[in-house]
């Protein structure tokens, strides 16, 4: 019986590319979660991650400026 992408990622066959990715350090559960989203939801999540990263960058800049002055 054919396994779904989710089943393949959660139970990788030894010697597979998925098993190699797990060995490399990829968190396969993150990929499973992404696969459950629609493409637009994936972009919404990316947009939100970008906003967080931008917030951190701004905070870091402000911290450095305050340290200098």
């Amino acid at each position: 019986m054919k396994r779904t992408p989710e089943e393949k990622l959660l139970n990788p066959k030894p010697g597979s590319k998925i098993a190699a990715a797990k060995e490399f350090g990829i968190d396969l559960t993150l990929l499973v979660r992404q696969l459950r989203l629609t493409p637009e939801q994936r972009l919404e999540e990316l947009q939100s991650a970008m906003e967080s990263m931008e917030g951190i960058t701004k905070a870091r800049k402000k911290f450095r400026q305050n340290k200098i002055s």
Partner: protein
Amino acid sequence: MIELKKAIKSLSENNVDFVIVGGVALKLHSSAYVTLDLDFCYARTKENLAKIVSALEPFNPRPRDFPENLPYFFDERSLQNATNFTFQTSIGDIDLLGEVAGVGTYSEVKLMSDIFELYGYDVQVLSISGLIKAKRAAGRTKDLLVLPELEALREALSDDED
């Protein structure tokens, strides 16, 4: 940071021939990768360059490495003068690629793309196999690091399993 919805909608509304590549394509294929810009490969026909100007002009594009004190005119002629562009715009950074290393020009990139429905439009996105080719050809550490994840996704989504 790029406002993805605005950028993709404007390109689609103006019927630009484009294929999303790079980090946004990775994300659409379920990668956990995070990027801050939008990269797309575009057809270099005169007609398409005019459409790109219509789509992006409202966002005041300027090359990111262009001196701030000099005027820059974003028009068809400026797009004809080079192949790849790295623009900063009022909605974030947008990179235009006339060619993707390892894949080719727009027509070849389009052949290796999948269609995603985004915001009511059919949008071309470089396939996982295309992304693997492009990342291998780019060969930088940051490109090679995403290969295990992409290969895992391709295997998971494949109909074949040994």
